[in-house]
């Protein structure tokens, strides 16, 4: 479960950083991104990446965790990049798995 969380947070982080860029925001939503919102997206992205590191370290320990974190981040980014041009809304929608994971954590 920690592992799944690490992966989901890494994906959310990459998504945040990606949507914080003018070009990619416009591609998905067809309108310009207000500068304040852009900062929020980027900030949330970095925060999610940090949380991903925390979860990876919880799952593997602080020696192996960062190794896994780099791999998870890289692969999450690649999945995002390959999804974006084909199904942009799906690529953004995938992040909804994160609240679902959170609910599972609370109730299970």
């Amino acid at each position, binding site marked *: 479960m920690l*592992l799944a969380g690490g992966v989901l947070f890494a994906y959310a982080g*990459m998504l945040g*950083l*990606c949507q914080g*860029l003018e*070009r*990619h925001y416009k591609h998905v939503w067809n309108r310009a991104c207000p500068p304040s919102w852009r900062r929020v997206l980027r900030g949330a992205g970095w925060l999610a990446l940090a949380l991903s590191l925390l979860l990876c370290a919880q*799952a*593997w320990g602080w*020696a*192996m965790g960062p*190794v*896994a974190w*780099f*791999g*998870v981040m*890289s*692969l999450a*980014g*690649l999945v*995002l*990049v*390959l999804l*974006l*041009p*084909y199904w942009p809304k799906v690529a953004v929608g995938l992040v909804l798995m994160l609240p679902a994971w959170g609910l599972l954590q609370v109730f299970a």
Partner: protein
Amino acid sequence: MKNTFTQSMAWLHTWGGLIFGWLLFAIFVTGTLAVFDKELNHWMQPEIPASEVSQADAARRAISYLQTHEAQAGNWGVSLPTERSPGLRVSTAERRHGGGVQLDPHSGEAIEVRDSVGGNFFFRFHFTLDLPRNWGIFVVGALALVMLAALVTGIVIHKKIFKEFFTFRPNKGQRSWLDLHNASAVLLLPFHLMITYTGLVIFMLIYIPAGVDALFAGDSRAYFQAQGNARMEQPRGLAKQPGELVDVVPLLAQAEAALGPIAGFNIRNPNTAGARIEIRPVLGNRIALSKGQAMVFDGVSGQLLSDVTEWRAAPLTQRVMVGLHFAQFGGYPMRWLYFVCGVVSCVMIASGLVLFCVKRGRKYATASADASARRWYRLTEVCNIGFVAGLLLACVGLLWASRLLPAELAQREAWEVRAFFGVWLLALLHAGVRPARRAWVEQLGLTALLCIGLGLFGGLSDGLRQGVVACALVLGVLLGVLAWRVQQAVPAPLKGRAARSVEAGA
């Protein structure tokens, strides 16, 4: 050479990447497969039962087998069933390199198992290219240096790393191939750099022996002893007096408590007063590769004689780097991470090779081009097909050979290796006589079918083999989709590899 710095870097990246990329692709593919070497071993030897037997029971059965059949041997080696390799194997000093005997962990009886190179072939090929060991290590080391150079020059010539960090524009021919090459390289750059650099560190003493030569006058044994790796002196006198072997099971438990999961043990001078029991952990209990480490017990009294060595900072650093490369730590989730990252590395190299041809196709593959330029272009194209699609075909061909060759064939392992290189050579020849696009489609399609077809060999009742078959199925479907896309690609200007290939073939 070119005028500006960036231009010379681009020149180096292009030509170094092309000429050495063919072999680098083979190294990366076999390295990726070697992540699951033990699982492939298990799949390629279907006679080994998948039984859930505790290590204690298995150890007792192995020792009673050895007492009955090999009581006089000077050394017993036992590989216990582990999570990744459910077989129970015993060997003696005389047969250390011959593979030993597989036992049924339930009954303790010997079972007939076919000889197979197993997934170990991919592991060995990954660092020697199947050349004589030291030659291979030097060639692969040189290739790793080229890889590092390609990575660094790639960073230099890629001017929009951050601007195009998330950019992939499909169906745009050359543009798309470049995007794919960039995305797979940039997003996994930490992995590429880590795996290439740590690969060089493994054999650093073979590549640059001067330090040991200077400090220890070339005496590598003295060097290993200084690191605390000294083998314990064997008690020669005691080894002649008979003695009764202590029960190994409590020792296994003691070692497991100290080291984590156990891979197996050796008993030197069994049944003598000088017996020594060396218990080895599996490699993945920590990042640092614990190869060669063991807890040593007195074989008669059961006393702990020597614990595993604590490495000093410098050897520990090297061990951690080697461990990062070997990917034995962190259990199956980490293993899958390494595997998928390895697959992406292969895609990165292959897309670079294809990009070389896509970029030049319009210029050189047309009738108006200079004849010798056309010949060179065609050679590049054939090598691309033979070294990318052909190697994948050879790899899955090896798996088929391991199941199809008669089990009692003499020198069976050598025939498997011949099958691997035979398929690869045929693929190169096939690429040479077929139009390029047809060759890509046919080789990728055949590889896909063979991958998907691995399930036909059965053995699906056991988890490890199921995993191999399922993974091959997924890879087969992906390769099938790729073959289909190449087939479908419209031969229009600027429509990618397929278009170039058709022109070349015409």
